[in-house]
């Protein structure tokens, strides 16, 4: 069943990058050579041995913390909070999308109106407003991402649901006297997973960028938590003299996002091929 996916180079490369970061996040304590918060030696250049003979792979920042170790621990932050935020956004988007798509009529009109209102705000402005109002904390970042992504997910789910609900097997379930809840979650939901898996990967990447952006704007996780976006922000002022302060966090963010985008593309290609085949 998964074999066609594993034959796609896009899936392999993208999945490899994403999986790589996941492993880094899981095994952060084993991989990171130093404590990410400990001051060792300020502004050491990459690959240059320190005073006590330590090796700083990616150099150190102005507070003397090892950038490589901070990136490794930062992966954990990104992986945990992007996944969590995307999952909660999906929980709400799926629930309301299924309800609106299946019920139609007034329920759909009201829910879709609310979704459109949220979607009509520029995303970044929305994040900033939410974070400024409720404050920067891990939970609040999850809330902000959920609030601004759920409507987009809602729209996708609603569209697919309307299509799936019109098929005869849903009518068959209705005429068997199946409960609405079961029709939604057993008959309709499993038939939406193809397009949603693609969207999930893309969205996970966007969320990683978002968390990076929030960090960069100083609205992310409060310091000294290792956070890729925050690291770019902190290094910004001295980036011309010490480019390693920003280059490595930037590469980290883009490699993760790129990986997820490639994975999404690959999944879509395989899904499309499957659909054509059916």
């Amino acid at each position, binding site marked *: 069943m998964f074999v066609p996916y594993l034959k796609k180079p896009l899936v392999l490369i993208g999945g490899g990058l994403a999986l790589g970061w996941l492993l880094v996040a899981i095994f952060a304590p084993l991989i990171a050579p130093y404590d990410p918060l400990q001051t060792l030696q300020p502004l050491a250049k990459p690959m240059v041995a320190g005073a006590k003979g330590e090796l700083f792979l990616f150099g150190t920042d102005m507070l003397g913390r090892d950038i490589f170790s901070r990136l490794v621990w930062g992966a954990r932050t990104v992986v945990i909070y992007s996944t969590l935020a995307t999952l909660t956004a999906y929980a709400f988007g799926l629930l309301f999308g299924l309800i609106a798509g299946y019920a139609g009529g007034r329920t759909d009109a009201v829910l879709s109106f609310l979704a459109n209102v949220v979607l009509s705000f520029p995303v970044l402005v929305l994040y900033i407003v939410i974070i400024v109002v409720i404050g920067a904390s891990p939970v609040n970042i999850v809330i902000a991402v959920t609030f601004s992504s759920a409507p987009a997910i809602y729209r996708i789910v609603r569209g697919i649901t309307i299509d799936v609900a019109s*098929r*005869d*097997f849903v*009518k*068959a379930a209705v*005429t*068997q*006297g199946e409960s609405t809840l079961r029709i939604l979650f057993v008959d309709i939901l*499993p*038939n939406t997973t193809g397009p949603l898996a693609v969207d999930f990967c893309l969205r996970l990447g966007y969320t990683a960028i978002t968390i990076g952006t929030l960090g960069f704007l100083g609205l992310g996780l409060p310091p000294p938590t290792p956070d890729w976006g925050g690291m770019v922000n902190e290094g910004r002022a001295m980036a011309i003299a010490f480019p390693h302060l920003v280059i490595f966090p930037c590469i980290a963010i883009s490699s993760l996002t790129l990986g997820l985008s490639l994975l999404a593309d690959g999944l879509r290609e395989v899904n499309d091929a499957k659909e054509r085949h059916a």
Partner: protein
Amino acid sequence: MTQSLLQIRNLSVALPKGADRAFAVHDVSLEVKPAEILCVVGESGSGKSVLTATLMGAAPRGLRVAGGTAEMGGRDLLTLTERQWRDIRGKDIGMIFQEPMASLNPALTVAQQIEEVFELHSDYPRAERAARAKKLVEEMHLPEPDRILKSFPHQLSGGQCQRVVIAMALAMSPKLLIADEPTTALDVTTQAQVLKLIRELRDNHGHGIIFITHDLGVVADIADRIAVMRRGEVVEIGSAEQVLKAPQHDYTKTLIAAVPSLVPRDRPAAETEEAPALTVSALNHSYGAKQVLHDITLSVAPGRVLSIVGESGSGKSTIARNLIRLTDPTSGTIAVGGEPILDLKGGALRRMRRRIQMIFQDPFGSLNPRRKVGPMIARAAMLSGANRAEAVERAKELLELVGLQRNAYDRRPAAFSGGQRQRVGIARALAMRPDVLIADESVSALDVSVQAQVLDLLADLQKRLSLAVVFITHDLRVAAQISDEIVVMSKGHVVERGPANEVLTRPQHPYTRDLIEAAPGRGAF
């Protein structure tokens, strides 16, 4: 001996690796002469559509011509470049497709679309183009040609659209016409008119025509010569007379035996007058201001089959939707076993649903692709009150009853063919132990040989389980095979009703007579 128009020799088209067979079309040799209709008959998957697409230089992606020639006017069509093809399509070869609506551009008027063909292939001045377009439309026997020319496709009926498509295909008087299931999407009376038109093209204009179809009835009406295809190969070819009256190949014999005839089957009369399982009285249904059902009254006794026959727009499917309460009628009553069902709500409605079950038209849409068929059937049994163990056992019994293996239990719908899926659909409906079974065009999507099997299965089960069946179909021939009683509907009205025998042999209403008259292959089988 006349020169042949198109001569195909040993044509093979290879399928991509991993397909269920190596060739979509294998070693096919055919020829078409002027003023001749060659029918290519085959069931789904026979390769007939790949054959025609290849002849139009439009083989589906992934398929590749693996050998052979197709000679027309001294040129081998298979070696042409795309640029050369553009010159030939429309000019030397005209093509008519199955879906008339889909082959017309919805944003252009009929006149614009026909004139476009002239713009591409001729240097007629504007006035000449318009005059020729009008003449073509007139030749297609379209009413009010001036109005039609100014119309957009959505303002025309399916039959009118198909005639416009034919007009476009004929615009440059191509010598060869390829028609791929051109009447399959049309109502039977419209189909008869289009077939008549195609015969005229052969007789009056001398076109050579390749006519692809799955319907042997249509073949009997129209073919000069017949090629029977199966799994990519031509298994039999000969004159219409030969192939239909004295088929040589076993497969041709099976196909011909499976064609439903208009002669009603003998069905035993009801032994006793039982109380009807389903009664419908004075049913009216409106969509907004448009009334689609007028005062429909029906009843079916246990163990009897009532067919509702009508063309598209007759309201027959609305009746089905009302019966299973997917939509509610504007007025009227429906009773199952004497109990009115239209006022039921919530739990009472859910309990009633068990008693009236439906078999759907599309075997690919009616089964959830993500669920295994066994649990799907068992779930239906559980909803009707069985416990888990009973339900599983009942599901396995039903799979056997409908002619599938018990080990089908753990497979998903994708593992089954259309006919097998329809059997699963029947098993699922029966798992609820219903009193009334609604079959809405349940065999229309199936190949003719499969159709015959599913009809036999339905007739057998219905007798054994003493089910009241409402069989909805557009095809009088199919209705003739299974019905005790037939109701003929037109534009929301019942125009004729009676025992199947009476309706088919002594129709009273002119519309019923038209339907019988238009049934393809009447008298041939």
